[in-house]
C-alpha cells in the first residue's frame, strides 16, 4: 500500500469537522434537555435533572403529544408498506419500455422536485372542494406517498440497473414460471435493498412536515405537534421532546442496520452467492 498523502490528513480533518457540524447541534440539545428546573434554552446548565422529561409526560396542556406520536407511527408503517410494495412492482415494470413509461417517469421526477407546499395546498383543496374531510390516514397518507414513492422507485431503478439478468435467464432455462422467477430468484437477491426502501419510507413519513401541514386535518402528526410547540413553548421541554424523537429514530435505524447485518452474516454462513452481484 502506498503511504498516505498529506491531502488524506487534510481531508480527514475536513470530514471530522463535517461530522461535528452534522451531529453537534443535536448533541447539544440532547445535553440541554437535562437542564435543571430553573434553566433556559441555552447554556449554562442550571443543574442536571430529568425535570423536562417528566414535564413532557405529565403536562398535556401543550397538546396531544402521545396521540400524535401514535398516529405518526401508524402512518409511518402504512407509508412504509405501501412504498415497498409499489416501488418493487413499479421498479419491475420499468425494466421494460411500455407505452407512456416516459411520461410516467417525468411525473415521478415532478413529484420529487415539486415544492412540498404545493402538494399540501393542492391535496387540501382537492379534498375540501370535493366535500371530503382531510384526515391524516387518507389525504395525509396520499400526500406523503408523493414523496416516498419516487424515492423508493429511484432506489429500485438503481438496484435493477445493477441487477445481473443472467440469474433470471438461468431460472427461466430451468423451467421456472415468471412468478417463480420473481418469488425465488429476484426478490431474495434484492431483499437487502428493500430493507433500505422500508427504512426510507418509514422515516421520511415519520419526519414529514410540509406535506402533512394542510392534509392532516384536526388530528396532528408528531412533526406538526412539534412545529406547533416551537411557536408557543420556550422551555427545554422542546429539547426533551426533540431528544426523545431523535432517539426513537436512531433506535429504528439501528434496528434496521442490525437486521441487514444479520441477514448478510446468515447469507455468508450459508455459503450462497445470492446477492453478490448486487
Amino acid at each position: 500500500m502506498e503511504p498516505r498523502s498529506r491531502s488524506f490528513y487534510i481531508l480527514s480533518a475536513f470530514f471530522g469537522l463535517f461530522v461535528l457540524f452534522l451531529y453537534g447541534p443535536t448533541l447539544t440539545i440532547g445535553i440541554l434537555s437535562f437542564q435543571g428546573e430553573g434553566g433556559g434554552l441555552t447554556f449554562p446548565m442550571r443543574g442536571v435533572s430529568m425535570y423536562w422529561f417528566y414535564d413532557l409526560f405529565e403536562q398535556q396542556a401543550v397538546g396531544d403529544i402521545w396521540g400524535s406520536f401514535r398516529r405518526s407511527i401508524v402512518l409511518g408503517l402504512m407509508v412504509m408498506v405501501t412504498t415497498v410494495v409499489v416501488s418493487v412492482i413499479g421498479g419491475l415494470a420499468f425494466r421494460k419500455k411500455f407505452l407512456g413509461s416516459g411520461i410516467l417517469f417525468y411525473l415521478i421526477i415532478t413529484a420529487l422536485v415539486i415544492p412540498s407546499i404545493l402538494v399540501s395546498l393542492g391535496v387540501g383543496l382537492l379534498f375540501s372542494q370535493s366535500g371530503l374531510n382531510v384526515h391524516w390516514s387518507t389525504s395525509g397518507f396520499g400526500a406523503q406517498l408523493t414523496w416516498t414513492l419516487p424515492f423508493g422507485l429511484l432506489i429500485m431503478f438503481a438496484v435493477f440497473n445493477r441487477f445481473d439478468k443472467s440469474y433470471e435467464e438461468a431460472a427461466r432455462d430451468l423451467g421456472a414460471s415468471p412468478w417463480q422467477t420473481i418469488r425465488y430468484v429476484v426478490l431474495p437477491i434484492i431483499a437487502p435493498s428493500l430493507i433500505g426502501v422500508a427504512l426510507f419510507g418509514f422515516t421520511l413519513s415519520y419526519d414529514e412536515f410540509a406535506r402533512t401541514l394542510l392534509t392532516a386535518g384536526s388530528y396532528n402528526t408528531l412533526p406538526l405537534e412539534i412545529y406547533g410547540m416551537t411557536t408557543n413553548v420556550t422551555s427545554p421541554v422542546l429539547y426533551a421532546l426533540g431528544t426523545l424523537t431523535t432517539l426513537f429514530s436512531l433506535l429504528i435505524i439501528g434496528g434496521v442496520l442490525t437486521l441487514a447485518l444479520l441477514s448478510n452474516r446468515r447469507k455468508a454462513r450459508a455459503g450462497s452467492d445470492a446477492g453478490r452481484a448486487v
Partner: protein
Amino acid sequence: MKKLLENRNLSGWLMVSPLAVVLLVFLLMPIILIVIVSFWRATEFSIIPAFEFDNYEFLFGSSVTYKVFYNTFKYALITWAFTLVIGFTVAYYLAFHIRSLTWQVALFLVCTIPFLTSNIIRMISWIPFLGRNGIANTTLMSWGVIDEPLEWLLFSDFSVILAFVHLYTLFMVVPIFNTMMRIDKSLIEAARDAGANGAQILWNVIIPLTKPGIMIGTIFVVTLVMGDFITVRFMSGSQSANVGRLISNDIALLQYPSASATAIVLLASVLITIGILLRFVDIRKEL
C-alpha cells in the same frame, strides 16, 4: 388472458397502476386544481369560482413579489455553492481516500443517519448555538475576538443558509459518492502513469466523470431550497421571506386563490430551472 398479459404495454400499465393512481390523485389532480383555483376570486370567508387574472395581476404588480423571488433564488444559489463544495469534498474523501469498503459504508452511514431524523428538531438544535447567549457568542467573547454578542448569528440570512446547508448537504453527498464509486480506478492509474499530478487528476478526470452526480445533487438541493417555507420562517425569526412563505402566509389567511397563483409561478420557476439542469444529464442512466 395469457395473450393479453403478454402484451408489454398492458402488463406494464397493470404493474404501475397503483403508482399511477397515487400520482394522478395526489399529484396531477392537485396541481390542476391549483391552476384552476388560481383564477378564482376570494372574499373574506370563502372562495368563489371565477375566471379572472386579478391574482396574477396583483402578484406581478407588487414589489414584494420580486423581492421574495429574488430572496428565493439567492438562498438557492448560496446554499447550492456551499453544499456543492462540502458535498463534493466529503464524497471525494469517502470514495478515493477510504480504502476498505466496510469503512466506506460505515462512514457513509454516519453521514446519512441525520437525514433520517426530524428536520424541525435539527433546526431547533441551532438555537443554543447561535442565540445571543449561545455557545458561539460566549466562546468568541471568552477568546476576546468580539466584545459584545453578534446579533446576526440567529434570525438572519446567515442562520437560514446555515440551516439549509446543514439539512441538505447530504443530498449532494449521496449522488456524487454514487457516481464516484462507479469511476473505473484504472482511469486514475492511467492518468497518473501519464504523468498527471493529484490536482490534474481531480480536475481533468474525476470532476468530468462526476458531473452527472453533481447535476442530480444540484437538482435536489435547488428544488428543496426553492420550495422551502419552514426553514426560512423558523431560522429568520419571520424577518425575511421567500416564495414558500408568501404562499403559506396566504394559506393562513385563507386566501387560497392568491396562494394558488403564487404557487403556480413558483412551480413554473422550479420546473424551468430543472428543465435547464436536465439538459446536462440523463437521470435514468446515471442511477
